[in-house]
């Protein structure tokens, strides 16, 4: 009460302010508490889960045998070759078979993973054998990029039911050529197209990321098969140099034609730039331009 009268002396508005601040503080603390409580709950659930997992692993370890034990079993079996199989022997053999099976299962899983990592098609059967789903992985210079998928109906003639391949890849045209007659050939061509596209796009991304200050991407299109890049001469009044890269083979990530243009008409014919022109034909754009920058040929 004393407090209240004191506060009232300062004015009602002031008092309301103080109350509001107190209320906010209390609600903040309450929220903090609730957060902590829910976090504790989550942690407890996590602990239970991990405990269950640990128990499972321990039980599994008990049923499998180490290499030593298996060697011992085989040795023993060889020795007791003619003996009748005793109760003990039965369970040991069963146990060793389990160990073999589990070990082989891990190995097969590892091999399947390896197939996936080296860019395999990851074939999966669907619809009880009537359909098949294929993944095509794309990558460029060590970076894994998108994975594209195709669902095929193989019950009668091979048909594509579903896919997530972008519409600017000429899928229909490629399918007309050899989808029915040579599935592997079709997939190979498609994979080359997708990897070519992914490679060209990645080069532009890398140029925009790494060479932001030296090279500007003036023009590009969805297929990234016509690119116009602008860079500048390192001298003071840095003349602009335009490099046009044309990729008429959509399955490749190297250009088929490189044109160098500049305000200075003589520049493209200098031996330096003639060399750069052939460099751009043989090396991916971002690597070539980086090299030019290091050499001091572009700003």
């Amino acid at each position, binding site marked *: 009460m004393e407090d209240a009268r004191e506060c009232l002396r300062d004015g009602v508005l002031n008092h309301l302010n103080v109350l509001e601040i107190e209320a906010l503080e209390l609600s903040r*603390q309450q929220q*903090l*508490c609730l957060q*902590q*409580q829910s*976090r*504790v709950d989550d*942690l407890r659930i*996590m*602990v239970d889960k*991990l405990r269950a*997992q*640990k128990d499972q*692993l*321990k039980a*599994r370890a008990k049923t*499998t045998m*180490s290499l030593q034990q*298996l060697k011992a079993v*085989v040795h023993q079996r060889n020795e007791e070759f003619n003996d009748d*199989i005793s109760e003990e022997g*039965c*369970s040991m*053999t*069963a146990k*060793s*078979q*389990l160990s*073999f*099976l*589990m*070990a*082989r*299962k*891990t*190995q*097969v899983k590892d*091999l*399947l*993973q*390896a*197939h996936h*990592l*080296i*860019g*395999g098609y990851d*074939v999966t059967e669907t619809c009880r054998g009537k359909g098949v789903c294929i993944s095509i992985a794309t*990558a*460029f*210079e*060590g*970076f894994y990029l998108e994975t594209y998928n195709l669902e095929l109906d193989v019950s009668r003639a091979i048909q594509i039911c579903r896919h997530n391949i972008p519409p600017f890849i000429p899928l229909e045209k490629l399918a007309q050529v050899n989808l029915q007659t040579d599935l*592997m050939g079709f997939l*190979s061509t498609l*994979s080359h197209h997708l*990897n070519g596209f992914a490679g060209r796009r990645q080069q532009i991304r890398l140029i925009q990321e790494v060479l932001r200050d030296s090279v500007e991407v003036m023009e590009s299109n969805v297929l990234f098969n016509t690119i116009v890049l602008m860079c500048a001469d390192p001298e003071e009044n840095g003349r602009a140099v335009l490099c046009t890269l044309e990729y008429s083979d959509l399955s*490749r*990530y*190297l250009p088929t034609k490189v044109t160098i243009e500049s305000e200075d008409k003589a520049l493209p014919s200098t031996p330096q730039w003639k060399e750069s022109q052939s460099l751009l034909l*043989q090396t991916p754009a971002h690597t070539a331009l980086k090299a030019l920058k290091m050499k001091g040929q572009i700003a």
Partner: protein
Amino acid sequence: MAENQTPTLQTMERVYEAEIKLLQEEIAMLQNQQENNEREVISHFGEHTQRALTSQPDFQRGTKDTAMNLKMELEKLEEDLARQTKMNGIVLNECEVNTLEKSKTKIVQQHRVSGNCIFLDFQVEFQLTEILEEEATIVRSITDLNIVVDGCEFIDISAFVSGVEETKSLLLFFRALRAFSERCEHRNRTFAHFKEKYPELVRLPEGCRGEVMVIQNPKIPGCTLSFVWNITVTKDGVIIPKIDLLTKLPEQAALALDQRMVAENGPQSFQSLLRILGVEATIEALIAAVCVE
């Protein structure tokens, strides 16, 4: 009242967090142990797994179901593996994985795979890194790559391989390896076919996996046609076959033919013949030409 509860909650948090860390470490250790164990078993008893699968020991009641499930699972996995091998055109025999670094946002693994693609053997070692970036995107990349290829066609592919190692283009390597092997196999089959069909006229001086097939009529020594079929791989994985015909003629014949500029126009007409007829028909035509004369 709120203030009294918070310290207890905090201590509980800490206790749980510590226990979680401990459990995670234990689990990781158990998993590692299990994996190592299994790998040892497989590498030691590799050949015996077939026997293990087919043998039917008496099981105690409890384990019988587990074994049956395991067998069915394994059968499905083996089917899958066979399917992948067929589709990918690559046979993998061994693979080893070592985890070098593992955290919530990054994992680094060292992989070693060995196998073969038709008749080229390979051993590929690569380091795989996966990083969890913001917005839950995972970036997967190869951070180290070493490739060893075995086989007499290795020379044609060696420049490509070193380029691929430099740029860490693992997938490009296998894509090109498959295409290259298929072309080599085609060449091999074609040469073998003609060797079988015309054993006296056709010679393979470099063996059937070589690049050269020599056509020579034993009745006309000194006149040989060497069919050279070169297959190379460019840096970006494009397979380039190059077929040339080398003719060796004895002096008198050469002088006579030279009057009609045959030797000079030979290569060009050969290339156009190839374009029109294709490889097999061209070889048949050459053999026919040698026989007639």
